[in-house]
């Protein structure tokens, strides 16, 4: 009887969590992947994944996870349900950040040590090209219209605009020092780029490739040099953007129309990367040194939960 009740409960629990989205977090120091049920606010399990996992993406069909295991010099293809390793992509040396094109058939990797961007054919698991970029390429993204591949080099302080058809650099924009992350708006019209050293967020026009706005941040009780913007995401309607401010331990809410900073939310320590829930009602943050993720309710713009996940949470991806 008791057993039956437990079984019932388990099945109920399973169906409940099957409906909710799943959050995946790479744990740089634990060599593992944390699987989180964000609605319940619970760490479901931790799966060993390989040496020093950092960048992570869910395939457009939600079947696979791509995870850069930096110290193994590869990007692994992982089954998004069973977490079995299905294959490896030839990422080049020390992959950290990478991007998928909208179709999911091209994957672009920043090779920081070699100042290269590696272009990979996902289906054939083959390198198509290596593109020479500035020193220490970091942030990388593809425009939703699949026109531009963006590579941001931290030491050269540049945004490289790479034509996705020819895989060649067509333009370069000099930006504020040590640029980290770049994200396009859903209409591909604007590119938002963060600068860690200047503590700024820059908005670039995709047509002119020029900076149209530079936003600075002020946090009460935090000196300017602690404000180091890293991850940035913009919602589909271009109403608001969210910026992780690194060791300032805050996420800034920016009005994406007026470019005003509307709110500063306290999250965990050294907040790094950000991901929306599929319905864009929630935002998840990885907090590098407090070993947790924060859940932000975007309707009320409040931090509702934090979930301990493991050592050095780095990347975050969400599966519906």
């Amino acid at each position: 009887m008791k057993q039956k009740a437990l079984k019932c409960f388990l099945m109920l629990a399973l169906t409940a969590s099957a409906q909710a989205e799943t959050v995946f977090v790479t744990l740089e120091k634990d060599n593992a992947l944390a699987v989180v049920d964000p609605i319940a606010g619970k760490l479901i399990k931790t799966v060993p994944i390989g040496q020093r996992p950092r960048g992570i993406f869910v395939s457009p069909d939600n079947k696979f996870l791509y995870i850069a295991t930096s110290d193994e010099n590869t990007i692994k293809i992982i089954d998004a349900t069973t977490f079995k390793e299905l294959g490896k992509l030839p990422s080049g040396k020390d992959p950290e950040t990478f991007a998928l094109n909208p179709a999911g058939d091209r994957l672009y990797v920043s090779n920081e040590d070699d100042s290269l961007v590696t272009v990979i054919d996902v289906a054939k698991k083959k390198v198509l090209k290596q593109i020479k970029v500035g020193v220490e390429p970091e942030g990388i993204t593809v425009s939703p219209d699949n026109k531009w591949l963006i590579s941001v080099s931290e030491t050269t302080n540049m945004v490289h605009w790479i034509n996705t058809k020819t895989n060649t650099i067509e333009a370069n924009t000099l930006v504020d020092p040590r640029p980290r992350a770049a994200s396009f708006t859903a209409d591909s019209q604007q590119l938002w780029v963060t600068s860690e050293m200047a503590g700024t967020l820059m908005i670039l026009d995709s047509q002119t490739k020029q900076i149209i706005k530079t936003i600075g941040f002020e946090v009460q009780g935090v000196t300017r040099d602690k404000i180091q913007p890293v991850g940035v995401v913009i919602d589909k309607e271009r109403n608001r953007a969210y910026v992780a401010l690194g060791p300032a331990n805050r996420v800034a809410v920016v009005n994406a129309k007026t470019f005003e900073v509307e709110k500063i939310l306290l999250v965990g320590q050294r907040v790094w990367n950000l991901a929306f829930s599929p319905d864009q009602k929630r935002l998840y943050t990885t907090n590098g040194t407090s070993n947790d993720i924060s859940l932000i309710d975007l309707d009320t713009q409040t931090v509702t939960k934090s979930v301990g996940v493991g050592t050095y949470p780095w990347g975050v991806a969400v599966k519906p």
Partner: protein
Amino acid sequence: MRLATVPYSIPALILLLTQCVNLSFTQAAPKQTINIAYLTQEQVIPAPLSNLDPFVKDKGVIGAELGIDDDNTTGEFTGQQFNLKKFIVPLDGNVVDTFTKEISPHFQYVVVNLPAQPLNQLADLPAAKPLLLFDVGTRDDALRNEECRRNVLHILPSRAMRADALAQYMMKKRWTQWFLVVGSNPEDRLYAEAIKRAAKRFGMKIVAEKAWEHTYDARRTVQSDVAVFTQTEDPYDVLVVADEQGQFGEYLDYRTWIPRPVMGTQGLIATPWHKTHEQWGAVQIQHRFLEKAGRWMEEEDYGAYLAVRAVGEAATRTQSHESRSLKDYLFSDAFALNGYTGTPLSFRSWDNQLRQPVLLAAPRSLVAVAPIDGFLHPKTELDTLGYDQPESHCHWDK
């Protein structure tokens, strides 16, 4: 006139200027050339203290070379070409001759890896006045105070900055009673002065101070020497050693009368760069340097790298090669140099010192990064290290 008293319109102008040149580069513009000289003199190779650490002859120069590589990668996209010419004066050579004949007529930017005395001798030459000299060899507080020169920018942290970094850490640990051991070289006494200043600044107590006058040979009597030497009347928490050349400091640890940690020039050291440092992208530059040099990056290399990168950064941002505009940019609010230490680096207007974090490192582990959390400053916490503006004795007479 002090730079700090320059009206604010200059930084504002710079910001405006940089925004105007914040262009995108769609085609290679006609090349602009920026020439940087690197000047050093050969050293007498000191007697080996240990077989573990081979003497590094080319400290500094490979850092400058890596810096020029990075400048030129940016230059490829902005139409600027950076050249580095190295001048390594032989032991019996004359640096002033080399400077006046080969450098000052042709270069506006000079990375100088020389001791304090020849550095200021060069800085005072009439031909050096319009130049920018980047000092990557000294840590002297006097050069940043009474003996400061307007045309010299100091890249490495001063002794005061290092001592303050150690003091902040010891204050956090509540290791407040120090026993100071001082070597016999003039540099050791300067280091000890910085330690005393830091102790006073952070409310620490030096309960005993002794000069090390024993042998420098580990194979002889050091075991008993150190035990006897480290007996003090008053109890202490930490043994602070001032031995910049490393003549005896390494022999103190594990040989003291009572079990106490060693800090200062040996044991836990304060340094701008260390091989154990990996955070904030440091792994990348450690790899790149190791690949190029076949050895770890020393602090002089780091200093030379930063100096060349500072010129590159200023030239790229201003799209200029004129020392006047570059200097204005270097001292503007817009200047933020990445030193791979988690905080943007900039120059202090009152003494031309590069403000920077200081690493506290044990031989095989990075222990802390100063400024330590909790040491606050109204402007930037980096200015809790070393001589802050109100304390500075630098007046730009020269």
